[in-house]
């Protein structure tokens, strides 16, 4: 009886990601919401980086505005001792860090963020509608990542290909960011 009740609760607590499956297409730009992923905020001093890299299975980048990626897992350099990790395969990032005894702080933030893919030849133009950074390929090459702003809200920006970006924002800002990017996409297409 009790077990059945637990089961019923488990199925009724189905997670409904913000803006799931939404997408907007304009000429030369497409904005779509990406499926949920595992995310983690990692803070660690220089001395712990090697051990954490080993446990996570990818080399944490130490230079500004870069990222490292391997087997569906991406680590974005955010600050001198701060990284943002995304695992699109759904593997547990926190469990990997838990094995490390070196000093670090790992916080699970999988459901804090919503990610968008902005793709197409005019993707950079669409993002530049609200982001003041130089997104030319020389200044922001493939793999470049940065925390920055889009309009009035903070985003994480990762260039995944010449004409593709991943935009991460906080869940409660996702409506604003999606609307902003949709408008920007139609402007960029015009």
């Amino acid at each position: 009886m009790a077990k059945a009740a637990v089961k019923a609760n488990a199925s009724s607590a189905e997670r409904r990601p913000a803006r799931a499956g939404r997408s907007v297409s304009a000429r030369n730009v497409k904005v779509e919401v990406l499926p949920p992923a595992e995310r983690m905020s990692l803070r660690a001093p220089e001395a712990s980086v090697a051990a954490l890299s080993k446990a996570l299975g990818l080399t944490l980048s130490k230079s500004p505005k870069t990222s490292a990626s391997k087997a569906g897992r991406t680590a974005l350099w955010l600050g001198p001792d701060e990284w943002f990790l995304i695992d699109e395969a759904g593997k547990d990032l926190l469990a990997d860090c838990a094995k490390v005894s070196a000093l670090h702080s790992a916080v699970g933030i999988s459901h804090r963020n919503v990610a968008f893919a902005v793709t197409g030849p005019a993707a950079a133009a669409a993002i530049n509608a609200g982001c003041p950074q130089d997104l030319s390929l020389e200044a922001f090459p493939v793999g470049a990542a940065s925390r920055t702003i889009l309009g009035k809200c903070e985003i994480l920006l990762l260039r995944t290909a010449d004409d593709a970006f991943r935009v991460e924002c906080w869940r409660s800002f996702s409506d604003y960011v999606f609307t902003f990017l949709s408008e920007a996409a139609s402007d960029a297409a015009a």
Partner: protein
Amino acid sequence: MLLIRCPYCEEERPELEFRNAGEAHIARSANMAGESDDDFEKFFFIRSNPKGIIYERWRHIHGCARFFNAVRDTVTDKFVMTYKAGEPKPSKLPGAVK
């Protein structure tokens, strides 16, 4: 838009990513309870507000989120240089007239 060089990101970034954080190089007393009222007032409220070169703390809040120090001219609004937090006040400024 101003471009400000973040010493941690090692490049110039648009000013929208930054936030001012007041005057730099104001040391907090190690014995705060022993401070006289006058000394505390000087530490807490009195700022130099110069016309010309000012040393300020800035924060790259929508970037690497680090605090750093900047030398700025309050008349022209130009950033003379920036340097990491904790580093001493630069004794010589680049391009200084004199």
